[in-house]
């Protein structure tokens, strides 16, 4: 068999393989002359076979391969080592431009051929470029990380540190060598091995991939005690896999500053309270001897008059006058401190305006005459009466008139009063016009500030403390009005008081809000953008506790109501105005604005005052979990027919239902009895708390109607007793009272009563109807408990 064709076959076969390789290959003899190249070589370098074979490698393509590094490689390395790997060559090739080639060389013995060198060239230009890009991006990212002033740690998912930023190393005074590739807990002798941090990193980050603002207080060996705010993000970082970025913000100083600010605030509040208390006590202590001075001088004056001691009379009048002046001053200071302490209350009553004006005029007349002034009174015919705090209205008018009298000589002081319709409601407008010295614009601005007179020289010339106008303004604002002034220096001033003809009970929020020190010169425009309320069938649930809110919502929805919820008093008020609900359930204990405050605000809103409000409080009931107990509600729409249904709800399974009426007034007891018996109740009566408690021992009622002011044990004490008795505590108590309760009294009843009814200010029929209605509404919380 002939060997030759067989060898040729093999060589063809080898050449085929070589041609198939996609990487350019050169076969050189030991003299570095090209024996052959593969197809990839010719295609890559755009050269022909003729230009290539039998050429010295350095001569190829006009010497484009004559590269010093390659010479070294081929002439020094290959002869001795017979192989080289991954020699990277960057070169500008005439035909194909700048390229990065990865060269691999092998020296082979190929059968009958002498030794050949196979030179493989891989074009890695693109790969190198993208690697460089990536490096640039990483450097860029690292630069950003290093620029961040907050210490950052980059962890892998096993919580091993990949790197830290410059701020980290600087803050914790550690080197990258001590940090990188270590478990976070091992860093700096385990100073980061903090249980709270472990929980965070091991429990929270893996599942939620992020946590925000975790505050960590810890003793760091290098830094001492520090408060750190930790934020973490889990992110996918390309070939790095999943990483956790942990950012640490040192908030120690901030927290300290906040703490100090809070302490300072508290201290100043305490100081302010102390000041108010001191003023109140001081005023009281001053008033007692002053009362004696005023009283005795008045008495002596009377006696002196009787005995015809005229010269004594003049002096005694001076003592008396000065005493009164001092007394008025002390009262002003007391009032102001009371307003500042938020303790000033309004006592609203209806009174006739003409009578009030006559009274004020009579009081002020001696002062007016003193400076030879004339007092003119003008009032519109439809003036009528108003509902306001009479004492404060009188004082406001008196203050303005006495100022006018003080700053006017031989002039005219006019007081006019009229009824006006503004903003769809009735207002009473008083104007005090004088022809006195007037005020400049600059002085007007400071006019209503506490303890400030228009200027210091005024004090010397005219006396006074400058409290009067500040008080006047505060009084007017408390009553929902204001006082404004217009003045021309040298011609006189006009002070205008505008008050609602019917002043509403103030809500606590408004009363506290006297930071509003805008200049009172321009009366404010009321914004009138209230949209027309859409007809609604929704119940509004106001509760700060989300679980309670949800429970209530679900219950009410199940009962077929549409429900909207509010998480705070403020939100509740806003929603209530927006939707006008059919009923409101209101939590008593809420932060910021509590239930009573919300209730008062609701009732001062015209559109909301008729909406039934059910006050709720959480009662601890180990068997049923959450339970509701209504506390108070005041409502107008009355439905007598609902009574029997409600009594049934009151677990009055066996008729007649036992009801206890506790009232010291026999007439009230009798009328209640009649009404309740008509509704199939069995009525027991007691005239005070002690008797009621004794009765209850033998005859447990299902419902209690309670008067508050009684001889012996009063309603407050009684309610307390009932609520501390394990078997009685669940009996609903309905308070029946002749008067509005103060906030303090309400607090005293806190949690003890179901609702409070008013005995006065309405007809008997209205009153009884209210009780029936109360029964109805009281049943709502019972449904929840079932």
């Amino acid at each position, binding site marked *: 068999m002939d060997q030759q064709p067989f060898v040729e076959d093999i060589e063809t076969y080898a050449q085929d393989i070589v041609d198939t390789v996609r990487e350019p290959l050169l076969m050189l003899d030991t003299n570095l002359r090209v024996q052959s190249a593969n197809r990839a070589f010719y295609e890559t370098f755009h050269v022909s076979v003729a230009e290539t074979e039998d050429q010295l490698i350095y001569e190829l393509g006009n010497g484009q391969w004559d590269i010093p590094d390659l010479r070294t490689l081929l002439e020094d390395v290959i002869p001795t080592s017979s192989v080289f790997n991954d020699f990277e060559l960057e070169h500008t090739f005439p035909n194909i431009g700048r390229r990065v080639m990865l060269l691999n060389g092998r020296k082979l013995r190929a059968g009958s051929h002498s030794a050949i060198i196979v030179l493989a060239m891989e074009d890695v230009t693109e790969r190198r470029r993208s690697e460089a890009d990536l490096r640039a991006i990483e450097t860029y990212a690292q630069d950003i990380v290093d620029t961040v002033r907050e210490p950052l740690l980059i962890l892998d998912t096993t919580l091993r540190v990949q790197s830290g930023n410059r701020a980290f190393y600087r803050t914790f005074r550690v080197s990258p060598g001590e940090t990188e590739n270590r478990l976070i807990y091992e860093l700096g002798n385990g100073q980061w091995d903090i249980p709270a941090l472990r929980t965070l990193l091991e429990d929270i980050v893996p599942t939620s991939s992020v946590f925000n603002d975790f505050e960590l207080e810890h003793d760091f060996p290098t830094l001492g005690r520090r408060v750190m705010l930790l934020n973490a993000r889990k992110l996918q970082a390309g070939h790095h896999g999943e990483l956790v970025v942990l950012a640490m913000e040192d908030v120690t100083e901030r927290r300290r500053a906040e703490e100090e600010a809070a302490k300072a605030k508290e201290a100043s509040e305490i100081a302010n309270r102390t000041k108010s208390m001191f003023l109140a006590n001081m005023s*009281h202590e001053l*008033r*007692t001897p*002053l*009362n*004696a001075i*005023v*009283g*005795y001088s*008045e*008495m002596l004056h*009377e006696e002196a008059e009787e005995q015809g001691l005229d010269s004594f009379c003049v002096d005694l009048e001076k003592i008396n006058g000065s005493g009164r002046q001092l*007394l008025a001053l002390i*009262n002003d200071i*007391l009032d102001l401190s009371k307003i500042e302490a938020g303790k000033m*209350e*309004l*006592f609203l009553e209806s009174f006739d305006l003409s009578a009030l004006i006559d009274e004020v005029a009579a009081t002020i007349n001696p002062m007016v005459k003193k400076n030879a002034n004339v007092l003119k009174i003008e009032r519109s015919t439809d003036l009528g009466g108003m509902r306001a*705090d009479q*004492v404060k209205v009188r004082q406001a008018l008196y203050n303005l008139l006495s100022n006018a009298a003080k700053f006017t000589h031989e002039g005219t002081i006019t007081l006019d009063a009229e009824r006006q319709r503004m903003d769809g409601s009735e207002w009473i407008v008083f104007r005090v016009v004088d022809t006195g010295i007037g005020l400049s614009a600059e002085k007007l601005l400071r006019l209503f500030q506490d303890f400030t007179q228009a200027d210091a020289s005024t004090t010397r010339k005219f006396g006074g403390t400058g409290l009067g106008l500040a008080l006047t303004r505060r009084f007017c604002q408390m009553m929902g009005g204001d006082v404004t002034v217009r003045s021309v220096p040298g011609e006189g001033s006009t002070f205008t008081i505008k008050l609602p003809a019917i002043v509403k009970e103030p809500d606590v929020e408004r009363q506290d809000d006297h930071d509003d020190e805008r200049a009172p010169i321009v009366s404010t425009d009321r914004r009138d953008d209230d949209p027309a309320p859409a007809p609604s069938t929704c119940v509004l649930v106001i509760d700060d506790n989300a679980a309670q809110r949800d429970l209530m919502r679900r219950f009410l929805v199940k009962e077929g109501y549409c429900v909207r919820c509010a998480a705070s008093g403020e939100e509740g008020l806003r929603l209530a105005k927006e939707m006008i609900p059919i009923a409101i359930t209101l939590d008593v204990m809420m932060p910021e604005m509590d239930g009573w405050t919300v209730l008062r605000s609701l009732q001062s809103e015209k559109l909301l005052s008729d909406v039934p409000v059910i006050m709720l409080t959480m009662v601890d009931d180990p068997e049923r979990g959450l339970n509701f107990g209504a506390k108070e509600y005041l409502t107008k729409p009355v439905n007598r027919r609902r009574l029997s249904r409600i009594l049934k709800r009151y677990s009055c399974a066996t008729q007649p239902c036992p009801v206890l009426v506790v009232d*010291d007034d026999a007439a009230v007891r009798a009328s209640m009895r009649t009404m309740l018996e008509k509704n199939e109740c069995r009525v027991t009566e007691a005239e005070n708390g002690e008797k009621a408690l004794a009765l209850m021992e033998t005859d447990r009622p299902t419902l209690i109607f309670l008067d508050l*002011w*009684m*001889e012996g044990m009063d309603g407050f004490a009684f309610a307390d007793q009932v609520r501390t008795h394990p078997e009685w505590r669940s009996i609903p108590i309905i308070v029946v009272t*002749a*008067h*509005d309760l*103060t906030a303090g009294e309400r607090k005293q009843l806190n949690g003890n009563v179901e609702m409070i009814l008013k005995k006065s200010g309405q007809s008997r029929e209205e009153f009884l109807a209210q009780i029936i209605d109360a029964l109805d509404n009281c049943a709502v919380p019972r449904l929840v408990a079932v």
Partner: protein
Amino acid sequence: MRRILLVEDNEMNRDMLSRRLQRRGYDVMIAVDGQEGVRMAQEESPDLILMDMSLPLIDGWEATRTLKTAVETKMIPIIALTAHAMSTDRDKALAAGCDDYDTKPIELTRLLGKMDALIGALS
């Protein structure tokens, strides 16, 4: 002669008011605390009681409630006297059963007017 019971713990106030009332022809009896006030009201049945509200032993509110719930004394008009025009005081005084209310320092003409309204003017 109109018989007035003045219940007041402050000596000077007591002295002043009693002398001024006596000068106007009233027969003035004095009690210095709430307990004495209640006792004297029961024993003496005065035409009218002027009741200070901050009193030792039993305060004015309590004394008023006691007098106003007892059959023998409930018809005696009581005017509450309080230190300052606190609306809560006024409210409380009326709630306790007082027939009228006045503030200190005493404005004698005003007080006399209120007394007259309750027991008729002295002839």
